[in-house]
């Protein structure tokens, strides 16, 4: 079923858990400007979790995935880091155990920065098993192909 909020949409298949929320920007007050973040995983997402999978990645088995799509502030649009136009299409070779935000033995990660619909995003993906990255990336590709980003919700 297609989930959509804050200019982000995802049609994840059954068995995937998805949350689209607004998170408090680091260093800002709770009622201040916030940034949309989309989390998707094949494990149960804890109510309290980090933007980049804190509290989630430790739950991943070898067949599980975690995806975090985080929107950066509007000042990031047009910067060199976010100069790639359009969403990335991850392949197995993009993943490495040393690209994890938090190293967990056996896991593999990848991160991409891009701009789409006039908004700057970072996509961070954790695979439950580096050895099974080809199989897991195939599942990831299917889910990312349903991603829908629309303009006008940058915060």
């Amino acid at each position: 079923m297609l989930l959509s909020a804050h200019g982000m949409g995802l049609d994840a298949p059954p068995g995937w858990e998805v949350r689209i929320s607004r998170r408090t920007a680091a260093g800002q007050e709770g009622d201040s400007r916030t940034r949309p973040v989309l989390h998707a995983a094949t494990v149960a997402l804890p109510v309290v979790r980090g933007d980049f999978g804190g509290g989630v990645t430790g739950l991943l088995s070898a067949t599980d995935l975690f995806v975090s799509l985080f929107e950066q502030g509007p000042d990031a649009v047009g910067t060199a880091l976010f100069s790639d136009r359009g969403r990335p299409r991850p392949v197995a070779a993009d993943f490495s155990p040393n690209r994890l935000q938090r190293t967990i033995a056996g896991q593999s990660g990848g991160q991409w920065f891009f701009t789409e619909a006039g908004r700057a995003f970072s996509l961070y993906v954790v695979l439950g098993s580096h050895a099974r990255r080809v199989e897991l990336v195939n599942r990831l590709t299917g889910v990312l192909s349903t991603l829908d980003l629309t303009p006008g919700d940058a915060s």
Partner: protein
Amino acid sequence: MTALVVGLTVAVALLGVVVAGLLRSHAEILRALHELGAGREDTAPGSAGGPVDLPFEVGRGVLSAAGGGAGVTGSAAPDVVGATPAGDTVQVSVTAGGGATLVAFLSSGCLTCHGFWERFAASAPGLPPATRLVVVTQGPERESAGAVQRLAGPDLLVVMSTATWEAYEVPGSPYFVLVDAATGRVAGEGSATGWDQVQRLVGEAAGDLALARSAGAHHDHSHRRDAGDGPHREARADRELLAAGIAPGHPSLQLTADEVVDLDRADEASQPGGHAGAGAPGRD
């Protein structure tokens, strides 16, 4: 005098009819109330004025393979899709995590539900390991998100979704559905007046599911072992041949595959409508 006696007799007869009618009506009302369940618990000694302790009545049982709509024990359980009281959009997978998911259908207005809300806000739900709790209220068009947010504790996963209520055919609140993540099916459902009842019955159901899974795993393991290559497969073939009456030295074992097929055809021709016999090797 005669007229007075006749008048009194008629009056008594009419009053008798009225009394009989009232008694019959009263009996019908009592019967109807009894069928609705009234008087089972609240007439018990010491229960006056206190909470009525109705049974949980979880419909637990063997998971059937029958499909169809959810909401009935054994049916496929759909994911919970909706919004949180804070406005997040969520899809909660009832099969994620590999354990079980207890979906608690509550509302902000029902008095019985308040006991559950308070219990969840005060402490962890205390469910069996690998069993998680998801509270589902009706959607923001029917529930006040603010009221739900005030009732829900900070660590409680609450989803507002009228569609989920409809998908699980929830008759009213509070209502609980236990989903077995391994099968993606409803393992039990029912209502309760206290969290202790739910905890106890979820614990029993979780134990039953664990037993069923271990029995299934044992069966699968035996089956896989037999189906594999090597000595297990050879032993299985021997068992089946012996069961069919084919021992070492049986003439059929000396035939080639083509000869066996020819033999089967000959048998079928000689026995119209009959089977070729279980002893033909290589047909399984």
